[in-house]
């Protein structure tokens, strides 16, 4: 039960206001209120007095700006001066919960920072509050838009019960598209441009998971030796390290230190099928592109293909807003939604890129192909010989009964080192299981 804070702010003297804000233990009603808020919002895992004391100690006692009773009521929605300190804490905690519900991670420590920030700035304007909260609670520019929209809804009105978004569910029913149009979408040699009305389902959370998996994958593979050296029982004698070790014995070299070259993380060339048959997985493709941005530049190549191949590495690695990039630039490549010619795409890949043993080639495709299978086999054979590792990622799950039955996949299985489900990209644990780690 939330206790009302009914004393008008302008009638409170400064010291009493602070007592009300920071020493709720002296006011039973308020203590209950803070406990209730803490329990509701997850700011405090338990409503113990220890938590309350901790919170009290961490809040800075400066409310002069926020609590100014003479603050001109020109701000829409009343301005911050209309909140008492306790109300402000409650509102801030609720706002933090709202942010968390919408995928913006903000820890209790950051909420305390936010509170301290508005205490410091506290000129009572909503704009200052917006900037202060954004600087302290939001740590990714991708979240700015969500933050701004939540801020406007939450602080400009008195709505505290902002509804959580329902989880997106998309049900794909077999036969939803008739067989002929599905066939045409898969195999048409004509290129069908991206349709504005179609919005692939993407998820920032999934993109982050894929990013973790790809980073783990680079470590797992470690294909080639690099420049850096690490201590080892085998290997060559390292004179510099031996000299360093000899300092412990006053310059007398007692033990020779051996080192070997450290293996570098693998570089990833990711080939993404964006043909019509992959339409249901375009969201996944876009999330993979977003995830690649979390890798160091130069450690990956991003290529999309259907009947043609387009190298989008420079677009993906450019430092702009990727949402804009995905939305406006990729569709201009006119490869989205047309038929699939994997063999020709791989042949083109061999011409336009230089891959060597330090590279792992990852192909994300459902394997539906009506290109020349002979070209496919030849290209895979060449790629197998020049790359360090080759993996085929299918959007279907082999554990769920999927069998690589298409001609393309049957050929590919003879050359690729692993056939992975796309779930392994979304979960590093599954990926490690496939590599028996």
């Amino acid at each position, binding site marked *: 039960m939330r206790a009302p804070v009914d004393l008008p702010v302008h009638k409170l003297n400064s010291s009493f206001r602070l007592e009300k804000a920071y020493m709720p233990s002296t006011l039973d009603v308020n203590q209950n209120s803070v406990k209730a808020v803490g329990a509701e919002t997850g700011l405090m895992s338990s409503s113990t007095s220890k938590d309350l004391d901790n919170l009290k100690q961490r809040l800075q006692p400066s409310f002069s700006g926020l609590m100014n009773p003479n603050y001109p009521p020109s701000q829409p929605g009343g301005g911050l001066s209309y909140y008492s300190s306790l109300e402000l804490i409650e509102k801030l905690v609720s706002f933090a919960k709202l942010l968390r519900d919408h995928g913006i991670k903000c820890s209790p420590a950051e909420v305390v920072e936010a509170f301290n920030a508005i205490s410091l700035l506290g000129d009572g304007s909503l704009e200052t509050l917006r900037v202060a909260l954004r600087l302290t609670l939001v740590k990714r520019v991708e979240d700015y838009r969500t933050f701004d929209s939540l801020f406007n809804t939450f602080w400009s009105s008195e709505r505290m019960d902002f509804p959580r978004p329902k989880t997106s569910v998309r049900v794909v029913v077999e036969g939803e598209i008739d067989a002929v149009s599905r066939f045409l979408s898969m195999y048409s040699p004509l290129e069908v441009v991206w349709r504005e009305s179609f919005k692939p389902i993407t998820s920032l959370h999934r993109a982050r998971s894929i990013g973790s998996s790809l980073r783990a994958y680079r470590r797992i593979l470690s294909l080639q030796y690099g420049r850096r050296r690490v201590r080892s029982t085998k290997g060559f004698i390292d004179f510099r390290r031996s*000299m360093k070790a000899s300092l412990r014995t006053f310059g007398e070299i007692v033990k020779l230190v051996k080192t070997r070259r450290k293996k570098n993380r693998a570089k990833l060339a990711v080939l993404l099928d964006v043909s019509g048959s992959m339409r249901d997985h375009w969201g996944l493709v876009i999330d993979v592109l977003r995830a690649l941005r979390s890798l160091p530049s130069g450690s990956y190549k991003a290529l999309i293909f259907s009947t043609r191949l387009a190298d989008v590495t420079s677009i993906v690695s450019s430092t702009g807003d990727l949402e804009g990039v995905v939305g406006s630039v990729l569709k*201009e490549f006119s490869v989205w939604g047309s038929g699939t010619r994997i063999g020709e795409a791989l042949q083109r890949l061999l011409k336009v890129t230089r891959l060597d043993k330090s590279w792992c080639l990852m192909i994300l495709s459902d394997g539906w192909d009506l290109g020349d299978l002979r070209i496919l086999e030849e290209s895979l054979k060449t790629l197998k010989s020049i790359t360090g590792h080759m993996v085929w990622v299918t959007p279907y799950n082999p554990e769920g009964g999927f069998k690589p039955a298409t001609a393309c996949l049957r050929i590919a299985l003879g050359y690729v080192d692993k056939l992975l489900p796309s779930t392994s990209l979304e979960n590093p644990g599954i990926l490690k299981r496939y590599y028996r780690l």
Partner: protein
Amino acid sequence: MTTFTTKTTSDVSGSEEVVGKVEVARVTFKDLSTITLDDIDKGLRLKGYIPDRDIVLAVYLALKLGKPLLVEGEPGCGKTELAKALAELLETDLIRLQCYEGIEASQAIYDWNYPKQLIAIRLLEKSAGVDDIEKEIYSEKYMIKGPLLKAVLHEGPKPPVLLIDEIDRADEEFEAFLLEFLSEFQVTVPELGTFKAKVKPIVVLTSNRTRDIGDGLRRRCIYLYITYPDRRREVEIVLSKVKSARRELVEKAVDVVNNIRSQKDILKKPGISETIEWVRALTELGYNEITYQALRDTITLLVKVKNDLDRLDLRKLLGVEA
């Protein structure tokens, strides 16, 4: 020419001096705790950095709350400059750690100068005892101090500004190490003991977003994203950097740059630093206005990717019909 006046309130003490006909105010901060938003705004402007309100608020909160400031944004938007200007504003030392792929903690903290130590051992082994030699070679004289140790050992009284530049280039392991360093501000040298910072450095981290920075580090920082400034601010910035440029020329240049930035298919959009360099080049070449010829001669200062150059229609950028 901009004239700054100094506040006479207790938070700022200052003196004014006349340089020629230009009145310049020197702002000195005795104590960080008394610094105000206005001081930061005016102080940064005085040092040639024209901030917007978000930047001023972020710097203010970082100083007041004692948190590191993580600045992300497009290349050439003034992330590193902000740290430099802040150090100048506070009249304190700027200690810079430039990150790169493969950087190790020993390069950032300290390393022993082994050849020098070995020579010392050889010279001293006949005349000194074991303890004396040990004491000698494990002293600060034989230490190669990295930027982080320098920041910790800073004598003060003003805290130094520690700029950790392009953190996204460093490996995740180094990022994890930084996380620990930024929470304690202490460095342990096994032979000498633990050094704890007498004055906590003001930390500014920058990132170009070539790699995603971990949540742990983000959580500990005040986060600021710098994007391209609005037209008025960019004109102001360029005029403050290229003093000899005419306002009309700068305004037109900023319009052209904004025109390029607004094109969706441009891969490398020009930052503020490119605008400054371009205006400087135009001025040096003696162009009083931006004609088609002037733009063609100097476009490579703005657009540095061949595909972008091919895509751009220079006449359209100037608003001139072919």
